[in-house]
């Protein structure tokens, strides 16, 4: 397109052009894949939990074992650069389970290795996963403060 023509593209036309160029997502297929992958990962988590529980661990530790199993699986798939290929098909199916969290940290660690271990990897480890950790912690402290206030007002909150 000649440059004088480019200038004549107004914002409405531009928006239309962008929409035409943007990859079409097939929501039905995306949802089916998210369901299958997400559901399967939860079953894997449940299997790990049940094994840990039958080995004599309490509920909290068995939960931790279940998380670590999926974290390790995601970390290994990320190390071999295959997680992204699976993620492209699975969408939210691998993003929403704890595998997505593990992948984002491990992938950042690998990617920023080029900037050095201290200023690359260790600084940018949570460049993607940061919000989940930060907001999660903040939410939990807010909840804790609310519990303390309720307790001070002698409301029975099960403490």
């Amino acid at each position, binding site marked *: 397109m000649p440059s004088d023509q480019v200038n004549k593209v107004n914002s409405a036309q531009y928006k239309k052009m962008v929409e035409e160029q943007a990859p079409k997502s097939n*929501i039905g297929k*995306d949802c089916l894949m998210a369901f299958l992958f*997400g*559901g399967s990962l939860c079953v894997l988590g*449940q299997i790990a939990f049940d094994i840990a529980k039958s080995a004599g661990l309490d509920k909290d530790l068995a939960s*931790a074992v279940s998380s*670590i199993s999926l974290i390790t699986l995601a970390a290994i798939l990320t190390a071999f650069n295959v997680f992204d290929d699976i993620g492209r098909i699975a969408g939210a199916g691998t993003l929403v389970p*704890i595998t997505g969290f593990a992948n984002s*940290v491990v992938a950042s660690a690998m990617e920023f290795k080029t900037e050095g271990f201290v200023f690359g990897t260790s600084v940018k480890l949570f460049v993607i996963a940061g919000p989940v950790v930060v907001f999660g912690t903040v939410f939990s402290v807010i909840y804790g403060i609310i519990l303390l206030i309720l307790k001070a007002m002698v409301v029975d909150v099960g403490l």
Partner: protein
Amino acid sequence: MMYVKAFLVGGIICIIAQILIDKTKITPARILVTLVGLGVLSVAVGISDKLVQFAGAGFTTPIFGFGIALGNGVKKAIAEKGWLGALGGGLTATSIGIGAVIFLAVLIALFAKSKDKS
């Protein structure tokens, strides 16, 4: 039976997130943060135990479960340690998972390299 329920519930949570990603302009990071917040909220309103009893890993494997662990951790820590528990309880309860992620990430970065994104 637990496996079927875990599959269905976990799968449905992922479908909801997928619809939000495809049909709205909400970024995945915000969706994940919201799910964590809902997890904490489910503890606050007292339904998290019932949810986990019903579908187990279907609720705990999605990042929603990170929120449940944070909320339960705070509640337990306040009961055991008093007001300081409000600050540390969430991280204490999730420390095993976070420790595992950090350790594995650094370990893997020693050996593995990301593929060229071309």
